[in-house]
């Protein structure tokens, strides 16, 4: 288990329980189950209390937790017959974006998402979930395919942002993102988006301009990273806590602002503590959001999405 800095008191309790059990295993005739169970209960209460009122910055840390389930885990857990489709037909296949045909509750769909990887090797291979233009162009191609064959599109968003690289700029990072957002807005099929971790700026919008957008309880979605915002507006990257608070990047604030449609509850202690439960909860959310759109015609789906964005922001957050 990887503990975050604010989880330190918890790690001490859990560590003690673990020590006690280890001691009992090596010492015959010693019964520690009562004490260990008491510690377990204490740990559970501590965990519940910690996660009840996470600050915006703590949510950023949870959203970026390395043990959190990633796109691939959700695809494995929620879809059957997943068939990867690769490449942008112009330059390369971007491994930070994965996508393909799959069945969701037996219904054929197109699923696309950012994948961060889960160990050093796969993180490098996935470029830490930071897509290059090829990634967005692959997504455009897959969305287009889905549109022509009347398949709903499900996108899973988890990216620190689009990759800021020399080649990415040369090959039109901005243009690729703009076209991907445009493609989202021109689909005649349902488009459902779930922010499962980090929704990093334009790199996220390119996938998440959807009919319905859901966010996991402790995920974030922001115009800029708190560190980036702090270094520009506070002239001090260490002010990320203040920036995170000011940016209103939590699922709870964004629901109030009418930017997202649904908050998906996470297991106590975050998705990283019980990935299976988190994946299941996301599955239920996708099912209900798809249900809301069932029976709508192509024209209605297009108009629904367009209206949603044109009207967005008419109410502020009176704070």
């Amino acid at each position, binding site marked *: 288990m990887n503990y975050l800095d604010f989880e330190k008191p918890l790690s001490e309790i859990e560590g003690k329980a673990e020590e006690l059990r280890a001691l009992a295993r090596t010492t015959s005739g010693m019964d520690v189950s009562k004490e260990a169970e008491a510690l377990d209960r204490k740990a559970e209460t501590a965990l519940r209390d910690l996660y009840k009122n996470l600050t915006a910055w703590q949510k950023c840390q949870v959203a970026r937790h390395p043990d959190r389930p990633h796109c691939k885990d959700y695809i494995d857990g929620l879809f059957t017959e997943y068939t990867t489709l690769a490449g942008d037909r112009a330059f390369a296949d971007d491994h930070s974006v994965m996508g393909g045909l799959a069945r969701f509750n037996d219904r054929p769909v197109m699923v696309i998402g950012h994948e961060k990887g889960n160990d050093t090797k796969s993180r490098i291979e996935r470029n830490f979930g930071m897509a290059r233009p090829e990634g967005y162009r692959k997504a455009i191609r897959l969305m287009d395919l889905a549109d022509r064959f009347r398949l709903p599109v499900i996108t899973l968003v988890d990216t620190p942002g*689009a*990759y*800021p*690289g*020399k080649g*990415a*700029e*040369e*090959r*039109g*990072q*901005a*243009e690729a*993102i*703009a*076209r991907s*957002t*445009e493609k*989202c*807005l*021109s689909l005649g099929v349902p488009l459902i988006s779930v922010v499962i971790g980090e929704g990093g*700026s*334009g790199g996220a*919008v*390119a996938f998440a*301009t959807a009919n319905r957008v859901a966010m996991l309880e402790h995920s974030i*979605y*922001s*115009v*800029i990273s708190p560190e*980036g*915002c702090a270094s*520009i*507006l*506070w002239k001090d990257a260490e002010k990320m806590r*203040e*920036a995170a608070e*000011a*940016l*209103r*990047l939590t699922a709870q604030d*964004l629901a109030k*602002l009418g*930017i997202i449609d649904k908050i998906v509850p996470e297991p106590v202690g975050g998705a990283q503590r019980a990935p299976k439960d988190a994946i299941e909860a996301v599955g239920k959310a996708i099912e209900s959001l798809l249900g809301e759109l069932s029976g709508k015609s192509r024209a209605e789906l297009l108009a629904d999405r*367009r209206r949603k*964005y*044109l009207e*967005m*922001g*008419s*109410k*502020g*957050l*009176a*704070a």
Partner: protein
Amino acid sequence: MNWITNYVRPKINSLFSRREVPENLWTKCPECGTMLFHRELAANLNVCSACDHHMTMGARERMMSLFDGGIFSEIKVPDPVVDPLGFRDQKKYSDRMKAAQKASGAKDAMLVAEGEIARTPVVAAVQDFSFMAGSMGMYVGNAIIAAAEHAVKTKKPLVLFSASGGARMQEGMLSLMQMPRTTVAVQLLKEAGLPYIMVLTHPTTGGVTASYAMLGDIQIAEPNAQIGFAGARVIEQTIREKLPEGFQRAEYLLDHGMLDRVVHRKNLREELATMIRMLMSLPPPIKGDLAPPPPPPEPEVLPTPAESEG
């Protein structure tokens, strides 16, 4: 005190105080360092006469130089919710806004107007970099939507001049949501079969480049304009190497296939009219019948430091 100070000083003082010196009579070219007199600079459309560097242009100034005889009428932009997040960094966002509005006399970073270019009716939207680094928030989104809706209603093309550091962080996710919102505006034009001409000016970066600024039917940029998604410093830190000369400049983008044309400011009016008239199947513009250039406007207010997404 002696008789000299008593006698001479008041005279010298009055001599100085009587002269009203405009604050920025001279502008230093940021590229080559030449000092340029404001009248000449304005007559030259804010282009350095020594090195041809295209300096940023205020929105009103741009409109005057764009339309025949400098005549245009403004199109109203719906007011958004003010300071939707109650944002505060070292200063309150509402105070920053008030200061920017006072300094510029403008409401926000975009002006929308209609008029004629070489007798061709056009709707234009101009982003003003001097207003909080031209950052895109709710107002800019509303302005682009209003511009597109007016263009569709009056069946006119839309010419949009971008100049922006990106999304306005102080409006948080609502600023990011201007990416899809402005994309809807572009779609309205496309569906109506009306030309949408983008003119990217220095600098155009971040979420602005990654939305409406890259979706033009025709992509024009001014010479040497910086155009990109990520900031050069961020890229250098990421890849840990120096970027090549001219990286993210208009000519570099042209070479990499991201633009149709790089056009000198003095030729812009004519090129816009020529292309728009072809796209709209109108007869060619009558050359030599263009209205005289507008009188030089007053010196521009110096841009405020950049306050926008990297």
